[in-house]
């Protein structure tokens, strides 16, 4: 046997490789069955990062569908309510480069809540139908009102209102919700000119 192989080194090499291929192939096959990933847990992770406003500004009907779309390669910059931080968290999760948000920069991350000017409400229920989180109470011909606690500020109720009695009010800071801002840090004066930062991606 040994002598045969030493006389035919090429044959020995081919056979050896073949054997190796068989062994490792079997290992791979076993691993593929044993460690099969069920479903797509990444969607859950993405969804947990999204703000759940269900606003549809990403052009998907709700946060979950957008999460699924991101998992399938959709851009990560289509969630204005989540703002910059959500986009960066998504970039981290997906291992992609951060991209500027696809929205009007003035409105990004601004927390709002819907408000019904109740004198003008005619009780048409159109906003109730539009609200994705059932945060508007009322019945036909009865005045409606927004449950502020549950309103996600998605603005979906504004367009359907036939009498334009819906307002999106920015949530105002009160003494109770006020908080200290982050100090400016050293080099505050030169911050605007800084062209490279120490943060960001490793």
């Amino acid at each position, binding site marked *: 046997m040994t002598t045969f192989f030493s006389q035919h080194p090429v044959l020995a090499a081919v056979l050896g490789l073949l054997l190796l291929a068989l062994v490792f192939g079997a290992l791979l096959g076993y691993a593929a069955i044993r460690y099969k990933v069920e479903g797509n847990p990444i969607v859950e992770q993405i969804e947990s990062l999204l703000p759940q406003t269900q606003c549809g500004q990403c052009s998907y009907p709700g946060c979950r569908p957008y999460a699924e779309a991101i998992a399938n390669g959709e851009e990560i910059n289509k969630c204005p309510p989540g703002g910059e931080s959500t986009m960066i968290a998504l970039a981290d999760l997906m291992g992609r480069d951060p991209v500027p948000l696809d929205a009007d920069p003035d409105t990004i991350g601004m927390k709002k809540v819907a408000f019904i000017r109740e004198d003008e409400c005619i009780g048409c229920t159109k906003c109730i139908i539009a609200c994705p989180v059932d945060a508007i109470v009322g019945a036909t011909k009865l005045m409606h009102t927004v449950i502020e606690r549950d309103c996600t500020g998605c603005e979906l109720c504004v367009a359907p209102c036939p009498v334009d009695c819906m307002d999106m009010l920015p949530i105002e800071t009160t003494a109770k919700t006020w908080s200290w801002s982050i*100090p400016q840090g050293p080099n505050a*004066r*030169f911050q605007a*000119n*800084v*062209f490279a930062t*120490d943060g960001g991606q490793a």
Partner: protein
Amino acid sequence: MAFIRVSSPHLHRPLSTHQVMRYVILATLPGLATLTYLFGWGSLINVLLASAFGLVFEAIVLKMRKRNPMPALKDNSALLTCVLLGLALPPLAPWWMLATGSFVAIVIAKQLYGGLGNNPFNPAMVAYALLLIAFPVEMTQWISPARLLEHTPDLVSSLQAVFGHPQIADAFTMATPLDGFKHKGELMADEYWRQNAFMPEKVWEAWALSSIAFMLGGLFLLWKKIFTWHIPVAFLGSLGLLSLLAYGADASNFASPMIHLFSGATMLGAFFIATDPVTAATSNKGKLWFGAGIGVLVFVIRTWGNYPDAVAFSVLLMNFAAPLIDYYSQPRSFGHKKPRKGIKHDA
């Protein structure tokens, strides 16, 4: 009066970064004076030249980084780095070595990492290590103590030596005790000491004196509470203990603890370099580990390594380890049962 919104506390201890740095610089003065007295003008020229280069580099690089150079220059941190570098380099080092060292220390080791507070490695030691690697010969030649020579190099010839005529310096240089001991060849330690031609008693005396001067400066800082005792004690303790054990086991092959502790850069390193807060471990426990690690590394490298002295390498290696030490030496917070080890993320 203006109504201003300031976060508490409204009181502040009258001690600022620039004062801390100034204290440290002041504390180096006894050492510098002793060096100048014992080894001539070389060390003083080193310190002044390195400082001048360092401040210029700092200003330039801050301008390039579009930051205001004045506050940074005023905080004395660049000055301190260059003073330490100047003290660590052999006297009468040529000017271009000082320039290169200052450049590496300030631009590469400090500012490229983000400036004060952000550098992971001790800038002076980075520069020292680079110079040591790049110019091993120049870096291991130390000028002879003044009392050994018939005439010490005066200020003019010192300056000549620094600017352009290194051969002048060559005439005054000799090996340091550590270097001599390292290259004693096949000689046993006691034989080596008997051969006074290689390492006369007076050389040893000069080194010990300057070491003590640095130690005094360090004790001043300790008294001023600029740093805590942990790092120097752990460093000197572990080095002393290891060398004592080795010397006790085999006095003929290992240098005595006295040589380890009172020659080379041991004292400078223990009080001025390892204690650099930016690059050291932070908690008290961590500082003990950090200092002890340096001591062990110094002993190991001096005994079995290629280079005669090892403070720079040891400090840099422990700088590497500082974040890890911090990670595992967090104190137990008030109201908690156990200290937390590291950061654990949920899966």
